[in-house]
C-alpha cells in the first residue's frame, strides 16, 4: 500500500537545496505551514526563491525564514501588512528581490503550471505599469496580457486531514493557494493536522487528490502564526 507519510518535518524537507524555488501555502496567517517553515530554517537551505501571497508577519514562520537570510527573491501579490517588518526592511536595503504579481494572476500562474499550460492571457494589469514589457494580444476587440506558468521545486502546505496516499482536505479559508501549489511543485510536502487511514476521507470530499502530494507529516497540534505573534514569539 502506498504510504507517503514522513516521520518528521525535518525529514520531509531534508532535500530542499540551495537555490530552490519553494511555494509556501497560506494567506497571511491562515493556512501558513509554520512547522514545515521552521524545519526549513533549521535545515538552512539558502538563496531560495519563495512564492507566497505575502511575506510573513512578525518574526516567525515566513518572516523568520526571510530574516534568517535564506531567501533571495520573493514572488508575491501583497508584500506588506501591519505586522510585516522583515521583508520591507530588506527590500529597502536592496537585499531581497521582489516580483510583484496580482493575486489572481499569481493563483492562475500556479494553477497553469500544475495543469501543464505554459502561458495564458488575462486582462488583469492591461493599461498599468505591471503590464510593461509583456506580450499583449487582442481577442474579440479586448486587450490581454500573456502570463507564464509558475513552477516550483517544492511546495510546503498545511492541510486539515490527510491519508497516506496524499488525499487532502482543508479547513475554511486556510485552503487558499495550497491545492494549487501541490499541483505546481515537483515535490508537494504537506503537514496534516489529522492523519487518517485510506478510505476514511469520503472520495466525494477530497479537495486535493493524492497524485499531487509526495510527502505528508502529521503535525497534530499546529501553532498558528497569529498566536505566536500575539505571544511575542520569534524563531529560531
Amino acid at each position, binding site marked *: 500500500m502506498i504510504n507517503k507519510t514522513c516521520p518528521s518535518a525535518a525529514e520531509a524537507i531534508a532535500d530542499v537545496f540551495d537555490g530552490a524555488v519553494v511555494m509556501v501555502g497560506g494567506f*497571511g496567517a*491562515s493556512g501558513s505551514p509554520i512547522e514545515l517553515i521552521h524545519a526549513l530554517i533549521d535545515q538552512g537551505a539558502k538563496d531560495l526563491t519563495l512564492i507566497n501571497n505575502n511575506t510573513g508577519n512578525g518574526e516567525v514562520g515566513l518572516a523568520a525564514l526571510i530574516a534568517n537570510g535564506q531567501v533571495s527573491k520573493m514572488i508575491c501579490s501583497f508584500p506588506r501588512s501591519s505586522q510585516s517588518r522583515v521583508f520591507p526592511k530588506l527590500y529597502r536595503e536592496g537585499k531581497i528581490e521582489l516580483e510583484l504579481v496580482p*493575486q*489572481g494572476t499569481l493563483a492562475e500562474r500556479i494553477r497553469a503550471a500544475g495543469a501543464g499550460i505554459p502561458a495564458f492571457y488575462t486582462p488583469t494589469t492591461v493599461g498599468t505599469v505591471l503590464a510593461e514589457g509583456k506580450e499583449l494580444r487582442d481577442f474579440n476587440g479586448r486587450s490581454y496580457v500573456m502570463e507564464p506558468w509558475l513552477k516550483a521545486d517544492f511546495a510546503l502546505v498545511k492541510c486539515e486531514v490527510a491519508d497516506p496516499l496524499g488525499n487532502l482536505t482543508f479547513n475554511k479559508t486556510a485552503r487558499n493557494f495550497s491545492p494549487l501549489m501541490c499541483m505546481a511543485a515537483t515535490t508537494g510536502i504537506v503537514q496534516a493536522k489529522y492523519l487518517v487511514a485510506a478510505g476514511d476521507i469520503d472520495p466525494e470530499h477530497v479537495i486535493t487528490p493524492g497524485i499531487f502530494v509526495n510527502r505528508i507529516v502529521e503535525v497534530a497540534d499546529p501553532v498558528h502564526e*497569529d498566536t505566536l505573534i500575539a505571544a511575542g514569539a520569534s524563531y529560531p
Partner: protein
Amino acid sequence: MSTGWTREQMAARAALDIPDGSYVNLGIGIPELVTQFVPEGREFIYHTENGLLGMGPPPAEDERDLDLMNAGKKYVTAVPGAAYFHHADSFSMIRGGHIDVCVLGTMQVAANGDIANWSTGAPDAIPAVGGAMDLVQGVKKIYVITQHTTKTGEPKLVEKCSYPLTGPGVVSRIYTNLAVVDVTPDGFQVVELAPGVTFEEVEKSTGASILPAE
C-alpha cells in the same frame, strides 16, 4: 457650510444601487460598511477573494476561528449556505465575470473611469497590489466610495490619475461625501447631491469638469 454624507451614509447610498441577489465583493475601509445597510427585502452574497462566498459579520472575540479570515486578514464568519474554495476558483469568480458588483475605496478616479488605488508610485514605497487589478478588470460593475477630496483638500476625482493605474476605464459610479457621480462618455456627471451640498461646491472640489444632474 456644507453638511454632506457621513461614511455610513455613503455606504448606505451605495447599497441602494445594488440589486437583490447580487454577488458582491467589498474593498477595505468604507466599502465594508455596505453590509450594515442592505435595503429591506434584499439579500447580497459577499465574496472575499481569499476563498469564501457567503461571508458573514465579524465574530465575537471569543468565537474567532483562526482559519476563517477575509481578504483584509480580519476574522469573519460564514453564513448558512456559504462555500469555501481555493484561489484559482475564487479568482475565476472574479476574472470570469461572475461577481456582479465590487465596491472599492480609491486614491484617485479619473473622468474616463480610470482608477488608481494600489500605489503612490513613490520610490521608497513597497509596491503591493493584492487582488485589486483582477477585481477592476473582472467584476461586472465597479463602484467607488471615497471622500471627495484628500485630507489636505486635493481632489480625488481628477481629469487624469497622477498615481499608477489599477485599471483603465473601469469605474461606473462614485459615491462621495458630497455627491453620487457617474462616469459617462462625457466625463463626470452628478447623479445626486448630498443634503445641503450645492453643485458649485462639488464642482469646486472636483479636479475635472463635471456635469450637473439632469
